[in-house]
């Protein structure tokens, strides 16, 4: 540790203002603060400070994502084995998925961080660390067979149009990872939805067992093929087709436990999203015209199918784009859960509604906060006796 500190201190003058490589000082600063917690203190005014800064927070989210990532890798291999009928042991399965997922992670970080560093240099800002998490989220919410150049394009769009034009980390209106997914979803729909894209190798169609369908549980449920919808337990464990990291509710719950325990993500949002989805599901059960219709699907199925759990834990809780006030968080989360289920059940075009529900509520989050704050002001005004 000391050796690294010494090295950093030694090369620091080169990168400071006036030094030989002074124009790269944002880049240098990014690496220095990544390695060491900066020892700067606030000089003006009063600030409430937490013991961890943004970089440490982001690192914690990466830890929380690890179970979903590792499980996702295994599942990619597992689905491939199912599709081709190849018998693979545990490590072969995992390694196959590893080789498929790692390029996506590299492309996502390479393109995204490249743009972040370049724009920070141009503006002379510090490099913001927001992309550390976004860069890991993006590969996890994409289908594994998505061509890498499309992934790169989606990442570039989300970082430039979704984030940098608004002023960088902390200023964006929508969750950048979901912007990347929305871009890919609308730009290349045939690579982002359907029955073929979720299992590695299925689009090329080589060596696939006859009759193998790579349809996700959501697609089957929407088409009304109930015999093909896996059991609750299977969907909870997550050995089902889907985007890379979102299939296993169990792995996501492990991450959720860490995020709630460390206080990084808001448990209020998580609880209210689940409540919103569950209540809407129950309500739809009551009005279902026949036991075969999509409306009659048990409400808890919605929680384990598709990206509901992943969106709840890692997307809706984004501190930048979500609601800030406690009461606002309840409203915001509840509406996400409700809209996600409504889109799933009533919109024949999109089997999954979580992405669009979160993006829509991101848009309304500031309005919700504003109303909550105004309501509080009004309430207190009423109480105050002005003489």
């Amino acid at each position: 540790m000391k050796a690294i500190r010494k090295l950093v201190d030694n090369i620091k003058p080169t990168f400071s203002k006036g030094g030989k490589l002074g124009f790269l000082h944002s880049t240098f600063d990014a690496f220095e603060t990544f390695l060491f917690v900066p020892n700067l203190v606030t000089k003006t005014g009063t600030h409430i400070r937490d013991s961890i800064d943004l970089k440490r927070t982001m690192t914690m989210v990466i830890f929380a994502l690890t179970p979903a990532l590792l499980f996702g890798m295994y599942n990619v291999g597992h689905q491939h084995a199912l599709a081709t009928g190849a018998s693979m042991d545990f490590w072969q399965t995992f390694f196959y998925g590893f080789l498929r997922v790692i390029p996506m992670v590299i492309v996502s970080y390479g393109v995204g961080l490249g743009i972040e560093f370049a724009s920070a240099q141009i503006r002379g800002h510090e490099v913001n660390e927001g992309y550390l998490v976004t860069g890991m989220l993006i590969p996890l919410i994409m289908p594994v067979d998505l061509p890498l150049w499309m992934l790169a394009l989606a990442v570039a769009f989300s970082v430039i149009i979704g984030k940098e034009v608004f002023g960088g980390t902390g200023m964006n209106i929508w969750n950048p990872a979901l912007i990347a997914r929305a871009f890919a979803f609308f730009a290349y729909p045939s690579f982002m939805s359907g029955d073929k894209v979720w299992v590695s190798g299925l689009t090329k169609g080589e060596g696939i067992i006859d009759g193998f369908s790579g349809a996700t549980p959501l697609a089957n449920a929407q088409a009304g093929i109930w015999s093909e919808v896996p059991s609750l337990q299977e969907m909870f464990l997550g050995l089902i087709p889907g985007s890379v990291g979102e299939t296993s509710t169990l792995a996501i719950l492990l991450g959720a436990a860490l995020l709630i325990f460390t206080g990084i993500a808001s448990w209020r949002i998580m609880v209210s999203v689940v409540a919103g989805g569950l209540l809407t599901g129950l309500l739809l059960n009551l009005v279902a015209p026949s036991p075969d219709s999509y409306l009659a699907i048990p409400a808890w199925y919605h929680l384990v199918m598709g990206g509901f759990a992943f969106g709840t834990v890692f997307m809706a809780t984004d501190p930048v784009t979500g609601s800030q006030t406690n009461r606002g968080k309840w409203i915001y989360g509840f509406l996400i859960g409700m809209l996600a289920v409504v889109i799933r059940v009533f919109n024949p075009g999109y089997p999954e509604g979580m992405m669009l529900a979160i993006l829509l509520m991101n848009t309304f989050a500031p309005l919700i906060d504003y109303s909550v704050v105004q309501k509080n002001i009004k309430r207190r005004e009423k109480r105050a006796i002005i003489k």
Partner: protein
Amino acid sequence: MDKKIFIEPLFKNNPISVLVLGICSALAVTVKLEPALVMTLSVTIVLGFSEAIVSLLRKTIPNRIRIIVQLVVVAMLVILVDQILKAFAYEVSKQLSVFVGLIITNCIIMGRIEAFALANKPWPSFVDGIANGLGYGIILIAVAFFRELFGSGTLLGYNIVPASWYIKNGGFYENNGLFILPPMALILVGMFIWVQRSIQKELIEE
């Protein structure tokens, strides 16, 4: 006559990217390059002649009913253009559908008549109309160029992206469906405004 009347609307005082008028049709007719070209031509003609006619009448129009008179003039020209398109370019006129008729509600037209033609002589008004129509057209054509190239892989209907590049033919490329959808037109217009503002720093508000 001042040359500025003709030069400024093309870039420095562009009706779309600076005045932010006429956005609606920029979103609607820019999926392909051809309708965008025809739309540019139609708007330029309507704008030029309506400004000239209103300018000729400017001393006789009673102030209180001027909007009605302006609308009559514009509506007449729009109907003329619409009929000519139907007669000589039926396919394009079908693609443009209601948007030719909707030129009458194009904010640029009322905006320029109110702001310029009512206070200037016919010839400068005509030039102002033509220049604003062309300034509108520059943005429209630029947006349509990118949308058709990336959204359909063609330009003016001719294939630009080689057929062998497409994934279904064993290649690697795929058209970007987002460029076909209206939001991308808005994002592109936003990007042009971004570029223009970084060139013309005086446009940036405090």
